[in-house]
């Protein structure tokens, strides 16, 4: 295996991880501030992708599509928070699981009802398509590089938001002591709606960005949802930093595991058995990683001890 291939694969893992981070950041924020397990986060990702596809098809502009995705997911998030989610904060995790599971059913079939049963078209815009040559002669798709850049920009933006702004202070206060911020005269209901809409917008952005190189279809959110949960649990629930580290760990493990496990097993086994067993192990790799992290650090890498 050449060095170039290795670097390319590391970039791939990084890009996958950064996309997971966009999903996981919203999820971990919502959990940290409101203490809510939101299974419907994957639906918001799907809504983002569908909005982007619909707007891009109508206007012909990918950028307008992205704005549509952000707006659509944020609006959907705010609406859901106002109608359903805010009734769940006082309930236990079990009720939250059931209610947000019900939301998945409604969102998925509702989307299919509106957009039909076939996948939608959403493509990489002309100015971002095709590969570029990196130093060292590595050919890498420009769009994927852009994804890494956008993801990192969002990470920095989030960090600034939380550490430097008034909203950030309220969010941090909300994570630490919920009664206290209400006592300080902050409109807690409004804060919750804003945080939820923010998380939803991040998920919608991820859905739209990923939708351009994947399939925009009903049910696209659930596999990503599970991965995002893996990420925030590895990172420590409520920690944005943890979500970033966890996401990159999961991205790299999944990508590199898929390549190296079969190669590694070929040293001992015949090629086709090795590929087959290697791929099975690779599918399980991130879950093994997660279980291992939790066994060693029961509250994740950066989680406050519960």
């Amino acid at each position, binding site marked *: 295996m050449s060095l170039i291939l290795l670097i390319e694969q590391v970039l791939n893992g990084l890009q996958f991880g950064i996309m997971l981070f966009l999903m996981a950041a919203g999820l971990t924020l919502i959990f940290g501030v409101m203490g809510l397990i939101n299974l419907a986060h994957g639906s918001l990702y799907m809504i983002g992708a569908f909005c982007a596809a619909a707007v891009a098809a109508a206007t012909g502009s990918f950028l307008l599509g992205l704005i549509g995705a952000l707006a659509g997911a944020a609006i959907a998030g705010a609406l859901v928070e106002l109608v*359903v989610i805010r009734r769940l904060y006082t309930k236990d995790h079990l009720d939250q699981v059931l209610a947000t599971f019900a*939301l998945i*059913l409604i969102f998925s*079939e509702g989307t299919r*009802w509106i957009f039909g049963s076939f996948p939608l078209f959403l493509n990489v815009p002309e100015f971002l398509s095709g590969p570029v040559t990196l130093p060292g002669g590595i050919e890498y798709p420009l769009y994927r590089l852009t994804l890494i850049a956008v993801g990192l920009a969002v990470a920095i933006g989030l960090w600034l938001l939380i550490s430097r702004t008034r909203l950030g202070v309220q969010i941090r206060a909300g994570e630490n002591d919920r009664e206290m911020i209400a006592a300080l005269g902050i409109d807690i209901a409004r804060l919750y709606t804003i945080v939820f809409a923010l998380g939803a917008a991040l998920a919608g952005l991820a859905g739209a960005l990923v939708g351009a190189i994947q399939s925009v279809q009903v049910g696209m959110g659930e596999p990503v949802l*599970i991965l995002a949960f*893996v990420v925030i649990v590895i990172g420590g629930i409520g920690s944005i930093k943890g979500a970033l580290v966890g996401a990159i760990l999961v991205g790299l493990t999944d990508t590199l595991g898929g390549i190296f496990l079969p190669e590694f097993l070929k040293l001992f086994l015949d090629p086709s058995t090795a590929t087959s067993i290697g791929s099975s192990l690779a599918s399980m790799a991130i879950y093994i990683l*997660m*279980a291992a992290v*939790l066994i060693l650090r029961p509250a994740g890498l950066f989680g406050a001890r519960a």
Partner: protein
Amino acid sequence: MIRERYLNALTLALFVAIPFWAITADEPFTITLMTRAVVFAIAAVGLNIALGLGGLVSLGHAVFFGLGGYAMGILAYHAQNYTALTEWPFLIEGTKSMPVIWLAAIVVSSLAALVIGILSLRTAGVYFIMITLAFGQMFFFFAISWAEYGGEDGLSIYVRNGFPGLNTLDPIQFYGLCLGLLCLVLLFAWRLSGSPFGLALNAARQVPVRVETAGLDPVRLKLVAFVLSGAITGLAGALFADLNRFVSPTMFSWQTSGEIMIFIILGGVGRLFGPVVGALVFVALEHWLGGLSDFWHIYLGLLLLVIVLFGRGGLIGMLCGREAVHD
């Protein structure tokens, strides 16, 4: 408000009356549907021991459901093909006998629950939910790529396994068998919750410190509950496989774990009959709504939402109020 005891009796009466009606009305499929509800109820009663009594929110009970299913699938598959399961270190042959399969299902899922429990109980709260989910996903992906036993295609067993003295191919006899097991499992869960172990477990869930000062190890109590819980769900898995005469990795999926949990929440957490009522209502909804439109998931979602938002303590809570059950 109805007394919970009467509601429980009514539920059991329904489980007996509906199949009798089905026979006279020549609606044999209703019996199959009821069997599905009974098997799901057993799985959920199992989970409820961990969840309701021990406070262990496991989103990985599909592991035990699936292991029970595959115990049946693998044993019956070898019996069906007249091949030995393994010849080393000693010969193990397949079997078509339900009691043997049940035993295998219980043993395998208890062992799995023991290992998963020891590892998972290092965590608590949401982390526990997620680590059990992780174990579920591991088994799911393993089963998908396990080509010897069908991988994603699963295993078909052509004829339902046998039980001494019964013709299990007759839907009503198989139903009776499952219902009998459900009653046994309910009896066990009821006795367990009133036993010294159950009381200690209940205390461990609410005030772990007090249990520790009493000289008991709360983690060990929870581990025992988790193993018992896994064993019962495993038994349900074997029955489910026999009901469908088929096993596949979907039994291991996180959606299966979620569904088993939903039965409990729907019926009422910690209530003896919560899982039973929940499974019955869910199966009925799935059946009726499925005939209404292609988009029936929307209605199912809305209904579940209404129950969570406006019903306190699931269906039993709505009907009987917040009555303390068994303590």
